[in-house]
């Protein structure tokens, strides 16, 4: 990182943190700069790492090295261009073609594996601990997991009024949910503090960074 880069990073960090006091023009400047730089960066990197290797180089190979099989990239390229037909009212309907392809592809690809990952494997994960009940803690852990799953599922079971036994189980489900939310919140606090530590570490190491230039 150059000296100028370090100073810019430092100034922008302070601009962003100034929001903690109150909203101000320095924060707004840093925020808008971030959005602009991100958009420009995304465009540039997408051009170099996607457009060139996926479209330009194959077409160039087809033209100069007579690798005609590479011309296949014209089809997805045309599909991509059709995405922009939405901007021309007369040809707006053509956007349905790439969208239909995308939706069909996504559904076909993701449904079977998502079922496998998020349903079958999770059922296995819930039941599997009962196959190796070695000690009292494993037994208690297995019971807690199974009870948690059943009670939480019952909380989201809306086909029957939540009264009596069903109501009691679903109320127990809310306790499991609260524990999960608490754990999630605790981890979120940890994550946010880590980000603050990262920035403070950067600011405190500023002299040594500049010395090493």
């Amino acid at each position, binding site marked *: 990182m150059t000296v100028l880069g370090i100073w810019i990073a430092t100034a922008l960090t302070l601009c962003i943190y100034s929001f*903690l*006091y109150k909203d101000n023009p320095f924060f707004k400047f840093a925020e808008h700069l971030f959005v602009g730089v*991100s958009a420009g*960066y*995304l465009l540039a*990197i*997408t051009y*170099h*790492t*996607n457009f*060139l*290797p*996926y479209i330009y*180089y194959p077409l160039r190979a087809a033209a100069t090295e007579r690798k005609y099989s590479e011309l296949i990239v014209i089809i997805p390229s045309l599909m991509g261009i059709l995405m922009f037909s939405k901007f021309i009212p007369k040809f707006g309907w053509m956007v349905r073609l790439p969208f239909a392809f995308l939706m069909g*592809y*996504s559904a076909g*690809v*993701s449904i079977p*594996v*998502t079922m*496998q*990952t*998020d349903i079958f*494997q*999770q059922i*296995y*994960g*819930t039941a*599997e601990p009962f196959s190796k009940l070695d000690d009292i803690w494993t037994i208690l852990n297995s019971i807690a*997991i199974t009870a948690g799953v059943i009670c939480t599922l019952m909380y989201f079971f809306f086909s029957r009024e939540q009264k009596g036994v069903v109501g009691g189980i679903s109320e127990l489900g809310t306790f499991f949910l609260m524990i*999960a939310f608490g*754990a*999630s919140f605790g*981890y*979120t*606090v*940890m*994550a946010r*503090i*880590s*980000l*603050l*530590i*990262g*920035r*403070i*570490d950067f600011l*405190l190491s500023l002299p040594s960074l500049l010395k090493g230039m």
Partner: protein
Amino acid sequence: MQIKKLERLSNMDRRIIYLLIGVVVIIPFFMPMNLPIYVSPSVQSIYDYIESLSPGSVVVFGFNFGPSTMPELYPMSLAVLRHCYYRNLRVIGLTFYSTGAVIGDDAMQTVASEFGYKEHEDYTYLGYKSSKSDAIILGMGEDISIPFPTDYSNYPVSKIPMMQNIKNYNDISLIVDFGSGNSPDWWITYAGARYHEKIAIGCTGVMVSGLYPYLKAGQLVGLIGGLKGAAEYEKLISKPAKATLGMNAQSIAHLAIILLVVFGNVIFLLEKHRSER
């Protein structure tokens, strides 16, 4: 008089709390406390799995995070990279995040220079590929050079010496994804379920509780969560770095937050008690 004091405390300016947290985070940087770090089983299992790999095995690194989560994920990616290089493993890096492209390149070059690793012989950085990550992950199951015809520097993958014997997941022993978004789910769903590939995840603290079910169900080799996980891994490879340094500040900040929560609840209960009287 006391009621007024309680009201004032319960309406405390939030900026005082920001200042307090800022101070408790800064102090440990000047007064290191060397608080103990205990290694959790989910981190240990990744270490053990990498230890079990034979030299020359291939590990894929996904640098799927940006500068906003670098303090958490960058230290752990360096720690796992160092472990892989200690073990003489070959590494392929890639990212689905545009902002991760430069970070991944920097991480791989930094650690490679420490070990004298050579690009295209010991490691390869494929760089960034956008949007349809599911298609890229599935494509890698057939032939890596289909989704990645060139590497980060636009050098043809087919001409990279290291990649000559690496075609698809059959030649890859482990995928380690450092993700701050959906990338862990993509790897688990497409590389894990479809190709039965071994997957380890390093994630931000926010994501840990959402990924534990996958760990419990045996869909992950292990899970490194947040800065704490990174510090645990640094301890395992006996190379304390940024994460270990940050853990002191983290612990003190957590203590301060716990005290603030208790303090807030005590004030709330006292106020409630007085209003009922």
